[in-house]
């Protein structure tokens, strides 16, 4: 009855939550809207040129890249998640958390290391040539710096997103549903494909969409590999052709891709629902895999871990040792401090915002609120540089307006209040990574049945009190996950940091970039390794918290 009454008043006039959430979402969407605003600026004949020459490459390569990463992350993420959740084999306990480690590895860093290792001039091919006396052209070796290479690199570091969400989904599945399929004549494999997989689909798609958005936003890897995608196209149009409007329009087109993805998923679901009809969760009795099956499972899990983490981390460590003496000075530790401080601040802020947006949406799930929340999360698919431009332009405009007004009114110059400050940088991080926190918080809220809200409200609690006394304690796991995900993402973030940071303020990622851009991979290794190590602790915490949450799951 209480909720019914609330719905009625809400229809009469938008409540404070609707207004607040919409306003907040609008502010967060500002950079994206600025970029979209460029659609109205005529870009001249640049489009004719692009269409005649490179646009097709951008589209085709971007599509191949997305397709490849989809396949790669699905096989890697879903396959390992299924084995870890449902089977028992040697090393399972270790893999359960270790499979998340590649998450700590920025895509551009893994690209650098594999290029160093596997390129024609690298140690592997040189050794082969040395052993067999081959020369150039005498043998075939897979080319790292190619479209397939980019697919592999991105898949190796992005599959943990799918793994993370798919594993949670498998652990939450009612075993009865799987048992039914068995009694209806389906073996374990067919059961996996016809029941378990479709039921985990929303979670898998959520993980996949995170991975694909990261793929679309990636610049470092594709640029280094010479793969012309939308993102490199944006930069080329902006830098090379000097046409900001056309570059922004390309970025808007990129957003169109993302919209299309989301739309397709929604359409394909139609009427079907995926939440479990069952309330009963039996303790999982993992299917033991012995003999060659156990070894195969072990090998399957070892593969992404080895190539996504162990090999590149080992290479970085080897390089770092070569130059350790010269780089580990006080300035280096200052970089570590900056990186950690920024990442921690951004993670806390992102969590707060995600909580406000997610909760506002739960309280008043009107179309306006839902749209606003979706728009606020769009930044995730936009390359960091584009976001940064979307931050620079409105902030500079605002600062100059305030300054002009203050001069005119009080004869006092305020200068730039926001531009070139850490506040601007943090804002860009929020725009870029809010989606990560939002998705986690939303799925956590989704698990709390509305009856709990209603009974708490019926017991006299205000909406705020329901959040504090009922939801927050139940959400602890999700909030923690959101916090850690954003932390790791910010730690790795490069382009927006590069453009927006204030004077005399560097981070580890900036350091890696500057040295790597100068093609000094060994010198860049200590900072790269520091990013990986700093990201490691949260990733391990994350993994443990998820394993624990299985036991504390609200039924």
């Amino acid at each position, binding site marked *: 009855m209480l909720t019914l009454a609330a719905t009625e008043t809400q229809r009469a006039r938008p409540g404070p939550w609707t207004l607040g959430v919409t306003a907040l979402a609008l502010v967060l969407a500002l950079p994206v809207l600025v970029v979209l605003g460029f659609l109205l600026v005529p870009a001249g004949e640049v489009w004719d040129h692009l269409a005649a020459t490179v646009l097709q490459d951008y589209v085709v390569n971007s599509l191949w890249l997305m397709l490849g990463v989809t396949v790669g992350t699905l096989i890697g993420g879903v396959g390992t998640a299924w084995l870890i959740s449902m089977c028992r084999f040697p090393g399972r306990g270790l893999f359960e958390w270790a499979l998340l480690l590649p998450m700590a590895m920025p895509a551009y860093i893994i690209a650098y290391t594999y290029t160093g290792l596997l390129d024609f001039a690298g140690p592997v091919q040189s050794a082969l040539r040395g052993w067999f006396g081959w020369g150039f052209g005498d043998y075939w070796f897979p080319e790292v710096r190619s479209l397939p290479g980019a697919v592999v690199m991105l898949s190796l570091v992005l599959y943990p997103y799918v793994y993370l969400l798919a594993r949670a989904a498998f652990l939450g599945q009612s075993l009865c549903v799987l048992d039914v399929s068995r009694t209806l004549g389906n073996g374990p494999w067919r059961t996996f494909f016809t029941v378990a997989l479709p039921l985990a689909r929303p979670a898998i798609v959520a993980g996949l969409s995170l991975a694909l958005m990261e793929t679309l936003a990636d610049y470092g890897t594709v640029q280094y590999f010479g793969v012309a995608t939308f993102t490199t196209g944006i930069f080329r149009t902006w830098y090379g052709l000097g046409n900001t409007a056309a570059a922004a329009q390309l970025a808007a087109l990129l957003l169109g891709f993302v919209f299309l993805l989301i739309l397709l998923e929604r359409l394909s679901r139609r009427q079907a629902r995926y939440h479990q009809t069952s309330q009963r969760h039996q303790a999982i009795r993992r299917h033991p895999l012995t003999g060659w099956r156990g070894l195969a499972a072990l090998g399957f899990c070892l593969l992404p871990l080895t190539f996504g983490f162990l090999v590149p981390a080992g290479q970085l460590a080897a390089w770092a040792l070569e130059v350790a003496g010269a780089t580990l000075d006080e300035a280096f530790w200052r970089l570590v401090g900056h990186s950690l401080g920024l990442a921690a601040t951004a993670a806390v802020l992102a969590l707060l915002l995600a909580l406000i947006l997610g909760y506002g949406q739960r309280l008043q799930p009107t179309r306006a609120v839902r749209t606003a929340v979706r728009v606020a999360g769009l930044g995730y698919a936009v390359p960091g540089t584009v976001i940064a431009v979307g931050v620079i332009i409105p902030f500079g405009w605002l600062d100059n307006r305030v300054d002009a007004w203050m001069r005119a009114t009080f004869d006092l110059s305020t200068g730039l209040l926001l531009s070139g*400050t850490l506040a601007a940088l943090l804002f860009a991080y929020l725009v870029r990574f809010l989606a990560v926190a939002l998705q986690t918080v939303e799925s956590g809220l989704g698990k709390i049945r509305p009856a709990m809200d209603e009974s708490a409200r019926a017991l006299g609690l205000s909406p705020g009190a329901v959040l504090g006394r009922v939801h927050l304690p139940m959400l602890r796991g999700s909030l923690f996950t959101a916090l850690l995900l954003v932390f790791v993402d910010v730690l790795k973030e490069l382009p927006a940091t590069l453009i927006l940071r204030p004077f005399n303020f*560097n981070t580890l990622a900036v350091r890696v970039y500057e040295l790597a851009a100068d093609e000094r991979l060994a010198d860049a290794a200590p900072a790269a390794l520091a990013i990986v190590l700093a990201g490691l602790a949260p990733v391990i915490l994350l993994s443990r918290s998820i394993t624990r949450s299985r036991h504390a799951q609200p039924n």
Partner: protein
Amino acid sequence: MPVARHHLIAAGLLALTALPLPLLAAEVNLYSARSEELIKPLLDRFSQETGIKVNLVTGKEDALLQRLQSEGLNSPADLLITTDVGRLHRAKEAGVTQAVTSARLESAIPPAYRDPTGHWFGLTLRARPIMYVAGKVKPEELSTYEDLAAPKWRGRICIRSSDNVYNQSLVASLIAADGAEATEAWAKGLVANLARPPKGGDRDQILAAAAGQCDLAIANTYYLAGMLNAPEANQREAAARMKVFWPNQEGRGVHVNVSGAALTQGAKNKAEAIQLLEYLSGDQAQTWYAETNGEYPIRPGVPISATLAAWGEFKADGINLTRLGELNGEAVRLMDRAGWK
């Protein structure tokens, strides 16, 4: 780790109170596309000598330019430093720079390497010659950039992507010399001669050539210098196998670009900024560039490192670099049409 925690807290506090602080002592603010590694030591030395504090943000030139444009007259930046003349030109066109008159700068920097109206000044030269694998190519076989499109080089050349600004300015220089039509035909010929699709940076081209994948590599000289002095053995060995050939010596000379600087339109520390500019064009700084990063001094007569001296003297293209900036966009389109990835 008390140090780390201290910085964590400091960064958090900064985030909350991140407002520009009032300027107390003499200082100068720099937006630099030169990486920190390749400018900070000079700036520190400048501060020591003059007592002027230098604040630095590094980044990609276009991003810095965008930031400068959005911040307008209120921008805290006094100087913009770029690694390419095209961007200096673009900054001038965008109206974010102002003219400087300084006798010292004008005498230190040859006219070809500075803006005729004083909006920007070149600080170092970056030559982009042809490098060849000793033993596989005889220097007599090489002559000009134009010759690289000849069929005899089929499958023998390594060069990086056309995304790269040095390739863009090289092509711009060819357009200036030979005209757009001839240059497009040349670019097509060059693409046909590539040993592999363009990828990686300049060092990668040198590594690939040394490893046998191609015979010629087009790269800026300071990358080769950096490799010769690199911590990794394989880089040193690869670089040792390469020789530098200065093309077009009979004609206009080898293509050079500059790294340079411009005074911003709203500069608040104008005197200090000019003082820094003059310092960077002085002998001490010029020698440092050559020693540390293998770049050539902006004017002849400054002592250079043994590495650079070993490659010999060369004649540089005398075109006023402003022209290259103007032709940059056209160069990109031309390379797009030629299928240069």
